[in-house]
């Protein structure tokens, strides 16, 4: 049995909208093994993104236990969570969320500003990450000068550069054409298979889910099943 990297037990998450208490996740249990590529699917409002935020340490549960990479996230303060995120997790967003005034290499270097690496080491590591995702030749280009697929590769390089063990991706292909989407998904698959990265993606795209090793379906704050896909 593989080592579990993500473990959720009886996780409840409620949001407050004005005076209303809105339940999003209701006593959810989940285990993700190290090296898995999990696709989270489900209709809008089913709680996928909330679950992803909890796994990524961006949000805290109302109750329940969340253990990721051996640490209890539900017990951490926001400062501790920030430090934990810097060490353990990389994020990829639908709209890339790159800094528009920085070139690709500087964008990728951002997480390394939180380390003690020298400027030259940061630059070298950023370039290595860009090389890994196949976009080193666009290192000096700003996001506005990149196509959607290229920008998403830069975002993936940024997620990888600090050597995160876990990548959480929120609809990483939602803003891309089919060809670019397939290229990005193929890249994620390589990172999973050849570099051992654990990946959790939220997607509406069944084709995207096919690239994963397991797909999870959510509805109304609960997991419906846990199908294992062919690796």
């Amino acid at each position, binding site marked *: 049995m593989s080592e579990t990297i993500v473990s959720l037990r009886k996780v409840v998450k409620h949001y407050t909208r004005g005076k209303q208490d809105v339940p999003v996740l209701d006593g959810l249990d989940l285990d993700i093994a190290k090296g898995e590529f999990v696709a989270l699917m489900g209709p809008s409002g089913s709680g996928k*993104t909330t679950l992803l*935020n909890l796994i*990524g340490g*961006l*949000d805290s549960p109302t109750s329940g236990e969340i253990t990721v990479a051996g640490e209890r996230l539900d017990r951490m303060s*926001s*400062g501790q969570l*920030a*430090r*934990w*995120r*810097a*060490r353990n997790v990389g*994020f990829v*967003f*639908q*709209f890339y*969320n790159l*800094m*528009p*005034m*920085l070139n690709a290499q*500087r964008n990728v270097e*951002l*997480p390394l*500003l*939180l380390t003690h690496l020298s*400027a030259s080491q*940061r630059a070298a590591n950023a370039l290595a990450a860009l090389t890994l995702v196949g976009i080193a030749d666009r290192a000096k280009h700003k996001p506005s000068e990149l196509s959607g697929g290229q920008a998403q590769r830069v975002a993936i390089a*940024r997620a990888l550069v600090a050597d995160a063990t876990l990548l959480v991706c*929120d*609809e990483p292909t939602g803003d891309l054409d089919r060809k670019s989407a397939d290229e990005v998904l193929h890249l994620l698959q390589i990172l999973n298979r050849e570099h051992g990265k654990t990946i959790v993606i939220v997607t509406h795209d069944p084709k995207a889910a096919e690239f994963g090793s397991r797909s999870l379906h959510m509805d109304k704050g609960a997991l419906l099943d846990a199908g294992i896909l062919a690796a």
Partner: protein
Amino acid sequence: MKYLPLLWANLWRKKTRTIFTLLSVVVAFLLYGALATIDDAFENPQTGLTGVDKLITTNKFSLTLLLPFSDVQQIAAVPGVAVVTWITWFGAYYQESKNFVFALPIDTPTYFDLHKDEFVVSDAEMAAFRNTRSGVLVNSALMKKFGWHVGQKLPLHSTIWTQKADGSLDWTFDIVGTFAVKDPTQAGQQASTVLFHYELFDEGRSFGKGQVGWFEERVVDPSQSVQIAQKIDALFANSPNETKTQPAKDFAMSFVKQFGDVGFVLRAILGAVFFTLLFLTGNTMMQSVRERTPELAVLKTLGFSDAKVVGLVIGESLLLCLLAAVVGLAASYALIPVIRTVLQGIVTSPWLLPHGLGLAVLLALLVGTPPALRAMRLNVVDALMDKR
């Protein structure tokens, strides 16, 4: 330092806005540098008597109070005083009150002895001046300004002195020559000067006879200036006309100061400038941070703590204000020699730079703190919602 490229890039995110904000802060610090220097000169006018070869003796209490002409004998008798001359404020304009003319009745022999080598006057024109009772020597810049020429009559209206003959305030002179000033730093101060004979003035005026505005002295040994000034003032201590002897360089500032509390006016202007700047720059910073809400959320997502995000926003504010302050203060340093041509005795305070930079830091903290706190309180999940 590793955050500098990020701060720099953020600063130039909206180039036009940053340039206009920078310019407004630069102008504010240029004003600060210039006005603070002038204010300092007024508050601490004593540039030092030591080494000064020219002194000016005025009434201790006000420049507008006259001194007895008879004092000149006692001042001249003070050991170390080489020459004494006397002058009175004539308060004149040409045709309209906006055409101010710095007309001075002078005792010709002592005045040009005291100021020897300072004026350029041709021998012929100097001779004509000495020989013409109603003659005037006019600064060549003033001649050019009003299109006057040698040989013409010059009517001047005094705001103070009525004539004994008819009670009129209008005096008529003959332009017999022009003069130029050798020292370019004096050129501005002397640009409106007209010199005429004290005898004509004293005999023609209807009141104030035997009284003068102030005395000017040149000392033999500049290293003795302090003692000589003290001796002159001691001569008239406890008399009805006590005196104040100061370096000639400080006289222009004393003259301006009699019109009001210059320091208060300067500080009020600076206060208004910085108060306005506070809102202008503060609003720019607030707007800039509001626009970058999703980007700040991404930084937090990547692991930047609340403190680091606060530091980045404050750092950007510091970069903006310090950059502008350095440029503005440098420009004010360049401006000070120009001011010195009008107000002698102005020196650049060694405290100007540290005070200016301190003010820039204070300004940066004041304008940077509200947006920094906003960035700190930013909820990552909510902020990312718009961009996902």
